[in-house]
């Protein structure tokens, strides 16, 4: 039996409130540091994308500016973009055309304000939480703000007065609506488990259950990740700027720094989504295999360690974003829609029902059996068991032998029989080609 009492007394100590002046100073410092790290990080991301794409394609990538790794390439690109001529085509709607890049850029940055990036610091002036704004509704704030980013894209497409740009904007809004719902639904199991919408509480819940949410809620994570790709307009869902069909989509008419705002906001969105994935599903800043950092406030060293842990997790997901981009081809528009509405949404809804039922059952037994309470490890073990079964069903049974049906309808039994015959004939011809 695992002694749950030793770790149960978490978050019963209320944070001693900071005096007004350390609060203001610490907040300003956090703002400046987070903004700087974010912007520099986004700049380095453009380099990382070019380098990783080059390596995946067997090339070397930028290596002329700033050493073999091309570390000064982002600076060179920035200077170039600022020096370039800013074109303002005669047929555009000027106020909206100018406003759109800002509208794309600001929400991408704002979301970073509520993501906790480290353990609370027990400083000599009081407890300083390692998050710019410790919003009680942080999670809802992020969902609201990130979905605002689509306005920038839609307005850019509209104000450009260009059919390709308009089509890009249209696709973006359709895509955003389709995946926003699946994304919100996929996060409800996380909220059910945490019983709270504060991001720090979700981190604590994962620490208390001795598991990451990805282990107990794999399918949620899976749906969230796919939806995040669609939300950030990254491949395989980069239909708004599909080069091969829409020139450059919504930013066709943009140039110089106005253009570069769109890639910057895309990368900032990517960083935010990655940070969110790390927070919601991978334990956030919590240091694995350590319980000292769970106790509310810690020393500076542990704070720095937890920030490092968070950065590593976020960086990993950013890498996954880039990695996927250079692996998968673009979805067709109707495939994108049917994946969102016919696969992701029903899956998320069914998952909510199952997880809610499991949690209800566990809470019911937990009220009589103390070893099965929410803060105990056994709770996590049971959730893990349920999840393993569900993940097996999804990834090994539901995922097999299906095609995301095209717009002209699902394959009929006759067609499937024909395809089976083709497959059988093919495997008969070349038994080794089953790769």
């Amino acid at each position: 039996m695992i002694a749950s009492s030793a770790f149960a007394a978490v978050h019963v100590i209320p944070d001693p409130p900071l005096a007004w002046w350390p609060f203001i100073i610490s907040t300003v410092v956090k703002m400046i540091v987070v903004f700087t790290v974010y912007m520099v990080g986004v700049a380095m991301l453009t380099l990382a994308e070019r380098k990783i794409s080059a390596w995946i394609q067997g090339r070397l990538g930028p290596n002329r500016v700033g050493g073999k790794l091309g570390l000064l390439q982002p600076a060179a690109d920035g200077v170039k973009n600022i020096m370039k001529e800013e074109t303002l085509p005669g047929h555009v709607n000027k106020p909206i055309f100018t406003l759109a890049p800002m509208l794309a850029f600001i929400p991408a940055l704002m979301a970073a304000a509520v993501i906790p990036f480290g353990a609370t610091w027990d400083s000599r002036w009081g407890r300083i939480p390692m998050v710019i704004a410790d919003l009680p509704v942080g999670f809802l704030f992020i969902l609201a703000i990130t979905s605002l980013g689509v306005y920038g894209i839609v307005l850019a497409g509209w104000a450009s007065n260009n059919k390709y740009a308009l089509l890009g904007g249209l696709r973006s809004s359709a895509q955003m609506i389709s995946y926003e719902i699946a994304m919100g639904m996929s996060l409800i199991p996380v909220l059910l488990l945490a019983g709270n919408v504060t991001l720090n509480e979700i981190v604590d819940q994962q620490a208390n259950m001795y598991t990451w949410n990805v282990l107990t809620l794999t399918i949620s994570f899976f749906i969230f990740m796919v939806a995040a790709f669609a939300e950030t307009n990254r491949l395989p869902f980069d239909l708004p700027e599909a080069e091969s069909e829409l020139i450059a989509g919504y930013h066709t008419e943009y140039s110089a720094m106005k253009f570069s705002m769109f890639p910057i906001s895309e990368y900032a969105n990517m960083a935010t989504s990655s940070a969110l994935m790390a927070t919601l599903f991978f334990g956030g800043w919590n240091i694995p295999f350590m319980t000292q950092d769970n106790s509310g406030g810690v020393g500076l060293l542990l704070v720095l360690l937890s920030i490092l842990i968070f950065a590593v997790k976020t960086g990993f997901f950013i890498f996954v974003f880039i990695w996927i981009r250079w692996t998968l081809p673009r979805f067709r528009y109707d495939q994108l829609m049917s994946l969102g509405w016919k696969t992701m949404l029903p899956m998320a809804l069914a998952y909510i029902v199952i997880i809610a039922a499991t949690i209800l059952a566990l809470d019911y037994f937990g009220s009589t059996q103390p070893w099965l309470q929410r803060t105990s490890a056994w709770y996590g073990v049971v959730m893990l068991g349920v999840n393993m079964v569900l993940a097996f069903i999804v990834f090994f049974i539901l995922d097999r032998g299906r095609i995301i049906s095209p717009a002209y309808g699902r394959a009929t039994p006759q067609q499937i029989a024909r395809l089976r015959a083709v497959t059988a004939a093919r495997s008969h011809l070349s038994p080794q080609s089953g790769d």
Partner: protein
Amino acid sequence: MAINVKVLARPVEEVSYVRATLKGMARTFKHLIDPHKETIQYPDQKKPISRRWRGTHRMLTTETGKAKCVACGLCPTVCPSNCIKLVPGEDEQGNRYPLVFEIDEFRCIFCGYCQEVCPEEAIHVGQHYENSEYSREGFVYDLERLTAQTHPVSEMWDPADPKGE
């Protein structure tokens, strides 16, 4: 479906999105960590070219530094793109030499017939390709410029070694 749209039969039994994605990611990751890259950083590194590479022309000279050309007129005759301009002259001893010998590298198709037909082994195509100029006139190489070239000349096709190994 519309007419004439080719619809490929997909193997339904083998289809799997998640596994196929993971397989693809494994493949790209292998390429990512593979230290072998295909890039040749051109001005610094150059691809080795064949010994039979037919590029910029070169006129070989005798020990005295004079062009070997005897102005026989075979190369302008055989030239399919008509890029060689030859005006023959004769000195007091009755030796023929070119008064004007110009090759327009812009018109030339680098077939190498001039080298093959030359009885004196004077005019050659060479193992060299970096000839850029600011004007079209710059591509007309006169005799002086042709004799001043130093790059190795192209080797002729050898029936004993048809692949040039």
